[in-house]
């Protein structure tokens, strides 16, 4: 038996531990944001956005353009495949089917693989075996595989949250399976799907290890999809290892942070909208 006074001490200690831990977590988050804001803001300048990268002016614009290209291409590849497979899993496959289990296992495996392993695979497969050399195309395909499990999972959840009565009413009115999917289910699930896609964009923007040996590190505006180009995160890594560009590094870190946080906030907004509708 615990005596009453002992219980009080124990309770107070536990409370203290909980509040200290929560305080630490909050402090870490705020420190990162505030520190980068304070150090980054004074270093922001128009030169950072000049179209040409030189060794004196570490402009981030080429890297930003490369990042946008990578996002668009990776989404063009991964979004249809991810949404399509989620549709198959939720709307077509029978529950408990062996094939469905296999896909579950593979997507879980994919989402656990570290990005450097994706990068190495991209280098071995797209860059070397398919002879694409370091290129935005190779980078985009590598990223597409990487974000596939994320898009699949979020789409699946969004589709599953559509009430079965919608499907039944649509069938009852004589609509076929495809019409039901495209006219009823997808529009209803779209905020959830969108939230997943935006989350995937956030991951692409933040990715670096998977891109160094696939898209390469050339700091120029790309001529074509086959030219090599560094993304913003790779750019961030490269200039932070050069002592001469510390000011630019702070500013680039701030730009990258604001971009990623903005994207994640947007994704959270759509996710909440889906939840509110239910």
């Amino acid at each position, binding site marked *: 038996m615990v005596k009453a006074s002992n219980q009080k001490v*124990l309770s107070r200690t536990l409370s203290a531990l*909980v509040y200290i831990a929560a305080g630490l977590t909050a402090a870490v*988050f705020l420190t990162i944001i505030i520190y980068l804001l304070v150090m980054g803001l004074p270093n922001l300048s128009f030169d950072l956005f000049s179209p040409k990268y030189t060794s004196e002016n570490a402009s981030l614009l080429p890297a930003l353009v490369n990042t946008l290209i990578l996002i668009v291409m990776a989404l063009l590849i991964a979004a249809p495949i991810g949404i399509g497979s989620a549709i198959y899993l939720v709307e077509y496959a029978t529950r408990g089917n062996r094939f469905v289990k296999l896909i579950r296992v593979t997507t879980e495996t994919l989402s656990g693989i*570290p990005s450097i392993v*994706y990068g190495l695979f991209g280098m071995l497969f797209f860059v070397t075996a398919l002879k694409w050399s370091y290129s935005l195309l190779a980078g985009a395909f590598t990223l597409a595989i990487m974000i596939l499990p994320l898009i699949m999972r979020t789409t699946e959840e969004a589709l599953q949250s559509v009430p079965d009565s919608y499907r039944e009413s649509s069938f009852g009115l004589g609509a*076929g399976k495809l019409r039901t999917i495209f006219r009823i289910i997808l529009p209803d699930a779209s905020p959830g799907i969108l939230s997943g896609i935006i989350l995937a964009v956030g991951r692409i923007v933040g990715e670096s*290890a998977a891109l160094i040996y696939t898209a390469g590190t050339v700091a120029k505006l790309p001529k074509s999809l086959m030219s090599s180009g560094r993304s913003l*995160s790779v750019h961030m890594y490269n200039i932070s290892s050069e002592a001469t560009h510390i000011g630019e590094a702070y500013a680039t870190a701030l730009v990258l942070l604001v971009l*990623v*946080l903005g994207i994640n906030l947007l994704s959270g907004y759509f996710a909440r909208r889906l939840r509110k509708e239910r």
Partner: protein
Amino acid sequence: MKKWKERGMRAAFLAAACVSVVAVLLICIFLFVNGVPAMAEIGVFKFLFGTTWRPSNNIYGILPMIIGSLYVTAGAILLGVPIGLLTAIFLARFCPKKLYGPFKSAVELMAGIPSVIYGFFGLVLLVPVIRNLFGGTGKSILTASILLGIMILPTIVSVSLSSLQAVPESYYEGALALGASHQRSVFFAVLPAAKSGVLAGVVLGVGRAIGETMAVIMIAGNQAVIPDSILKGVRTLTTNIVLEMGYAADLHREALIATAVVLFVFILILNLSFSLLKRSRENG
């Protein structure tokens, strides 16, 4: 006509679903085909347990990197798990209603911060602090552990939180009714019931820490020797690949791919234990 369309689209959806299976197969094949022969050539035992990594002399032992990865991961778990778990308990049972929303979004945003930003933050803030406190270069196991501990926080918090919230309210109320205080009810009735979920979060955190590359490369010092103190620099399996892949050729290159194979096998084991844990939670 309509029937064909229905069938065609069904086949297209099925094909899409097969892509992830094909991707996993391709990744396995390409890694193993490129990495395993090198392991055989060097000698599996020599490769895994060799303490010297000197590619210029054709000596490839990755034990320093395996140990490095284990050290920084263990450090991250030691720091990240208690703080993350307690933060999750705070959010689940102690947090004022008004604070819950912003706090939870802050944790979600932390998960989205890119590893290069964490690395840069570690480089400009954490490394000098450690240098001033303990001497040396500041790039060390300790620095990497602290940073990785921060990086796995959001994973630990969100997975633990959702498993804490899944515990039926009756557990908490029952403990209260038996005379336990709020804190005791949470820690000794609710928390044990969420155990397997918390463990799953820890496994996910281990996966994230062991696979982290760019943040570690910037702050861990990257010396390929077995460290004798937590203030010494360290090289992990992941950073070994990035550091040398750029100029490696022949056996050296294949040895780096074999390093990735070792990492991959580690991760597969972790994934397996994660899904076993999840299954036990769903059944129990």
